[in-house]
Structure formats: C-alpha cells, structure tokens
C-alpha cells in the first residue's frame, strides 16, 4: 500500500510517502496510523490529540474507522488552509 504525509506531518515523519505491505492486524485507517506512529515517533505524538491529524483513503476524506486494504492509498495531513 501507499502512504502519504503532507505539510508539517511530513516534517515529523521525514518522508513524503512510503510503500509498505498492509501491516499484520491493521484493518482500519486509524489502526494504520497507530502502526505508523510507532515507526515515526514524532508522528505518533500528534496522533494522541484528536482532530490534529486528518485522513484520506484513495483521495477521499474518511474517519479513523474506514477499512483499509493492501492496494489502498492512505494520506495523513493537518486541517487544510488553502484559498
């Protein structure tokens, strides 16, 4: 699967995107975030505060309980500030 990080979350992981197999035991976007939070502790820190990290699954906004599969693209980012 493909994982992407944007804005200051990218600065916390140190990578803009990574390819990885679906981790064992991970069924939802929220579980994936916690798994990745262990790989990138500074990303893991900010996951503890609700609302700071937003999720997209295959380029649609989703909640933490959205199910993920091995071919999905998941993105993590802070609230948007365009316009």
């Amino acid at each position, binding site marked *: 699967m493909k994982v992407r990080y944007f804005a200051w979350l990218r600065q916390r992981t140190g990578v803009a995107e990574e390819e990885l197999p679906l981790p064992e035991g991970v069924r939802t976007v929220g579980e994936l975030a916690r798994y990745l939070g262990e790989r990138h502790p500074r990303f893991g820190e900010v996951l503890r505060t609700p609302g700071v990290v937003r999720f*997209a699954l295959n380029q649609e906004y989703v909640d933490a309980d959205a199910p993920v599969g091995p071919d999905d693209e998941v993105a993590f*980012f802070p609230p948007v500030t365009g316009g």
Partner: protein
Amino acid sequence: MIRVQAEPFDPGAELTAFLARCGGAGGVASFVGRVRDRDGATPILAMTLEHYPGMTERKLAEIESEARRRWPLADSLVIHRYGRMLPGEPIVLVATAAAHRQDALAACSFLIDWLKTRAPFWKMEETPAGARWVEARASDEEAAARWVLAAAD
C-alpha cells in the same frame, strides 16, 4: 472549470476571458485571494502552498459541482496555485456567472468558503523569524458550515 497550477495567473485577464465565455449571463461575481504582506505586526516574506495532487483537483471539481447543483449558474471557474509565491501574488480566483446577481454572489461565496475547508492545500509562511505552517481558522469552519445549514433548511 477547475485549474490547479504552479504558474502565476493574471486575475484581470482571466476575468476578461470568463466574461467572454459566458456572454449572456447578466451577473458575474468573482473573488481573488492573494498572499498577504503581514500577519498583524509580522511581515510575510513569502508563502509556499503545498497540495495533494489528484485529490485537490477531485475535491475542487466536487465543490464546483455542488455549487452548480445549488444555484443556476451559466458558468464557473476556480483557479488555484501551489508552490512558492510572494506577497501580493494571486493564490486563488473564483468566478461565477448567472442570470441573477444573487445566485452569482452566493455561489462565489460558497465556492471560496468550501474550498478553504475542503480542498487539500496547506500554507507555509516565511517570516523574518523563520517558516511556519498556517493554522486552520475556526472562522473558516463556521463560514463553510453556513452552507451546510442552508442546504438543510
């Protein structure tokens, strides 16, 4: 029409082209958002807009479709830049055309309000003290929520 681009654009020239394209519509509203030159007392030296390629275009097209579902628009246009830009440079242009001015004006406000809270862009400002990511504003969420309430009426 949606355009997401790194290149600068000229809002006056874009408005001219938009007016020509929808010649029959009596009312054309537009909004231009530019890089501000200061935040309170802090000078802004430059701004970088990051976006999510692919998802950005998709969300903007959805927001435009929603506007055209809610108001009888003859035409609409959203241009949004990404990348690094200087104070005063245009970031975004929204334009709407309708037979009646109130439809054009409401749809224009709606487009910019929803774009600000739903399109995946992130602003980083460079100040004399260094670079910082702009925080989302509660007032933007409130402005966008007006239209959710209006739809439920």
